[in-house]
C-alpha cells in the first residue's frame, strides 16, 4: 500500500542560516496514529509546515498518498488537514463561519459545507457556540474549533501540532476519544505533543527528532521493549540526552 507520507532526504535551511532539517527520511503508513516527538526547536513544526505547504523546503522529496508536493501540491494538499499549534483563525468571525469558510477554500459548495460544519461542531461539542465570535471561546473550545476546521474537508491525513496544549484533563480525555474514533474510521493521524503519556496512549508508531535529524523511528511497543523501559518519557529523555 502507498504510504500516507513518504519523506526522503528532506532539508530546510532558513534565510537566517538555521538548518532546521538536515536530511530527514520518514515513511508513515496509511491508517497509522503516528507520534512525532522532539524538544522545542527540533524541527517538528518545520516538517509539518513543509508537509502542509506553509514552508518551502530546501531539498529532498515529500509525497502525500503518492502525490509529490513538487509535482502537484494542490492535490497533495487535498489529503491533508492541519491543526496548528497556535490559534490562527479570525477572532471576530463566528465559529460556524470559520469552519464553513475553510471548506470553501477547498472548493466545497456552501450548502454541503454548512452541513459538514454542523456535523463536526456537534461532534466536538461546539454547536451551541456556533454563532459566537471565536474570541469568546475558552482555550479548550478554541482547540476543538481548530480540529473542526482541519477536518471540514474530510482529509485522509490529519496533522495535529500540540493539539492539547493548555487543555484541562477532562477535555483532553474527550479529545483523545474523538481522535481514537477518527483514526479507527481510517484517518491517518500525525501527532506532535510534549505530553508523552498522550503519545504513548494514542500512537502506534513514533519518531523522535532532534536538531533536524530523526533519532529513532519504530513502533511504540518496540521502542519501549528495546530500551527496557515501561514509560515513553524515560526512553525519550535517554534519547535526547544521548544525542
Amino acid at each position, binding site marked *: 500500500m502507498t504510504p500516507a507520507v513518504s519523506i526522503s532526504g528532506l532539508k530546510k535551511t532558513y534565510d537566517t542560516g538555521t538548518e532546521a532539517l538536515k536530511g530527514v527520511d520518514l515513511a508513515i503508513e496509511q491508517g497509522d496514529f503516528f507520534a512525532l516527538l522532539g524538544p522545542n526547536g527540533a524541527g517538528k513544526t518545520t516538517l509539518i*509546515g513543509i508537509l502542509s505547504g*506553509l*514552508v*518551502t523546503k530546501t531539498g529532498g522529496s515529500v509525497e502525500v498518498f503518492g502525490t509529490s508536493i513538487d509535482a502537484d501540491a494542490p*492535490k497533495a494538499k487535498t489529503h491533508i488537514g492541519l491543526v496548528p499549534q497556535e490559534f490562527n483563525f479570525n477572532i471576530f468571525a463566528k465559529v460556524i463561519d470559520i469552519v464553513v469558510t475553510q471548506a*470553501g477554500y477547498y472548493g466545497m459548495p456552501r450548502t454541503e459545507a454548512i452541513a459538514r460544519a454542523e456535523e463536526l461542531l456537534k461532534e466536538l461539542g461546539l454547536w451551541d457556540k456556533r454563532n459566537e465570535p471565536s474570541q469568546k471561546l475558552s482555550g479548550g473550545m478554541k482547540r476543538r474549533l481548530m480540529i473542526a476546521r482541519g477536518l471540514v474537508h474530510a482529509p485522509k491525513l490529519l496533522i495535529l501540532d500540540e493539539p492539547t496544549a493548555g487543555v484541562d484533563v477532562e477535555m483532553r480525555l474527550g479529545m483523545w476519544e474523538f481522535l481514537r474514533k477518527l483514526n479507527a474510521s481510517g484517518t491517518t493521524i500525525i501527532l506532535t505533543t510534549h505530553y508523552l503519556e498522550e503519545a504513548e496512549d494514542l500512537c502506534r508508531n513514533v519518531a523522535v527528532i532532534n536538531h533536524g535529524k530523526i533519532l529513532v523511528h519504530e513502533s511504540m511497543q518496540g521502542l519501549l521493549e528495546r530500551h527496557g523501559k515501561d514509560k515513553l518519557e524515560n526512553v525519550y529523555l535517554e534519547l535526547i540526552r544521548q544525542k
Partner: protein
Amino acid sequence: MTPQKIAIAYYTMLRAEFVRIIRIWSQTLLPPIVTTTLYFVVFGKFIGSQLAPIDGFEYIQFIVPGLIMMAIITSSYMNTVSTFYFAKWTRTLDEILVSPMPNWTVVVGFVSGGVLRGLLVGILVLIVSLFFTHLAVFNVVVLILAAVLTSVLFSLGGLINGVFAKGFDGISIVPTFVLTPLTYLGGIFYSIDQFSPFWQQVSMFNPILYMINAFRYGFLGISDINIWVCFGVLLGMLALFVGIILYLFRQGIGVKN
C-alpha cells in the same frame, strides 16, 4: 482542483472580504467619502468658484474625476496591503495557504477584494460629487475600463507591499511617502498644460497622471495625454505587477516560512 472548485474557493475569498468591508464600513467606506467631500467643498466650491474654467469646464467639474480616482487608488491599495499583512501577522493566511487553491487564485482573491472596495468607494464618492456639480459621461467604456484597471493595478501594488512588509510601519510607508505625493502630483487639481515644458516632461514619469487623465477623458472627453498612451502605460504596469506577484507567490517570498 477542478475549475468549479476553484470558482467556489474564489467566491469564498471574495465573500469573506465583502462581509469584512461592510462590517467595518466606518473604517473602509466612510473615511474617503468624508475626505473627498471636504475637497469638493474647499477646492471645488470655495476656491474653485474663483478660478477660470479649464478646457471649458468649471474647476469643480475638472477635479471631480481626479478625486474619484484618488479615492479608488487609495482604497484599493490600502485594502490589499492591510488585509494581506494582517492575515500574515495573525497567521489566518495559513488557512488559505494550506488549501489546494492555486497561487493565481489566491492572488485574484486578494486583488478582487481591493477592487471591490475601490469601486464601492468610487461609486459612493461619485454619488456625493453629484451634490456639488453636474457630471456628464463622455465615454462610458473608457470610464469603466480606466476605473477597473487602475483599481486592479493598485490592488496588486498593495499586495506586493503586503508581501514585503515586515511590520505595521511597512504597510504605511509606501502609501504615505510614495502613493500620496504621486496622486497629488498626478493632475487631479491641474492640467499639465499649465506647466513649463520641463515640468511637463517630469510629470510624464508619474504613472498616476495617465490613469487620472484616462478617467477624466471618460467623463469630460479631455486629457493631457493621448488616451491610447494612457491605457498602454496602465496595461504595461499591470503586466509588470502581475509578473512580480506571481513570482513572489511561486517562490513563497514574504508569503511562506
